[in-house]
């Protein structure tokens, strides 16, 4: 059983049980995450510490809003490395973040499907 990447009860509390809003947030994340991830990769590839910190900060915010704790923590680590100019750690931290991100995206699709089913049943 893989680790849960999204704390659904927490996310539901954050949206005050508004499943429509939850679905919208999940879809916005799904659309925005690949672009943000690419920007982070570019920062890491060019060893641009300032950019890594900025992109990781933005990702951390998105992931926190989504109650995606493990991914938010991995982004926070990258942000900190960027701020501390610890360039040698960038590759490993970014790879670790990407692995978590992959798992998160898989679970995200399941989540979106569940929310849609729940919403339909709520409507019926």
């Amino acid at each position, binding site marked *: 059983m893989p680790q849960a990447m999204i704390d659904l009860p927490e996310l539901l*509390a*954050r*949206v*005050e049980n*508004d499943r429509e*809003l939850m679905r*919208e*947030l999940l879809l*916005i*994340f799904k659309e*925005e995450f690949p672009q943000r991830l690419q920007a982070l990769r570019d920062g890491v590839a060019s060893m641009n510490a300032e950019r890594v910190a*900025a992109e990781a*900060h*933005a990702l*951390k*915010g*998105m992931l*926190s*809003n*989504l*109650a995606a704790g493990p991914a938010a923590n991995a982004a926070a680590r990258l942000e900190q490395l960027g701020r501390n100019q610890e360039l040698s750690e960038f590759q490993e931290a970014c790879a670790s973040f990407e692995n978590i991100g992959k798992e998160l995206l898989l679970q995200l699709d399941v989540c979106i499907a569940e929310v849609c089913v729940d919403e339909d049943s709520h409507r019926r």
Partner: protein
Amino acid sequence: MRILIADDEMMSRKLLQKTLERAGYEVIAVENGRLAADQLFPADGPRLALLDWVMPGLDGPGVCREVRKRKEQSYVYMVLLTSKESKEDVVAGLESGADDFLTKPFDPEELKARLRTGLRILNLEDRLVEAREKMRFQATHDGLTGLWNRGVIVDLLRRELARSSRERTCTVILMCDLDHFKSVNDTYGHLAGDDVLKETAKRLLASVRTYDFVGRYGGEEFLVVLNNCDPAFAFARAEEIRKAIAQKPVPSSSGPLPITISLGILLSQEWGRRPVEELLHEADAALYAAKAAGRNGVKVARPKIASADSESQVHDPVRLRR
């Protein structure tokens, strides 16, 4: 209540917007600090703002600093949204002019509670401004008639005399006094007397232009300042005021009362540069000449022509009084 949200991150903006709309706020959402400052600058802009700390260009603390520079506008209660948690960051945020900060990801109930604190502060500010305006009005207006009080009307006259001297125009002083007012009070009581004063104030205001000044100078004495006014207009205005009082009985708690008024006119262009007190004294002398001539009339204060001393003369406004 309108609230501004500024956050460059779409999910965060959406989440804040929905949460606040559900709580009854009218939300304006923007995606950067520059747009936030533009929204908050106008006097009728939102007075509550939630600002993300990190934004491209102008960040949250930068917006706070810009808004606080504008001292003349109503207070804007600003909350910074941040994932920064160090003491130094918090101090820097609050020193930029923010009122509070909220750590991301926010809890909806905490967010609403923090904003309620902001609303209480804005409400307190409204009450203070209202009290200040009330005090300002009381300090500058006569409590019974609502006209300018003596101190203010004399200041306004002083200002207008200086301006007319600079611009070579004429300021006109109308010193007006109700006739036999003491007997109104003695016969019908002070409440009726107050009614007469209030109605006189209304009729005076209705008889002058919107940019002229009317003040209560003393008990039953009123001072009217006509700006940038030629003699013929001044005489006509004085006569209109006299008629406005005399032609229609004044309603009072003791029934309609026949009231008349006497006026002394002074045209500044005929007197050159003189202290305001001296001009008021001369206008008062003209008023008392009108009283001596039988009341319900108008007299003009005129300086003695080619006289070595400063003695004045009082004349009828011949063009109007046959």
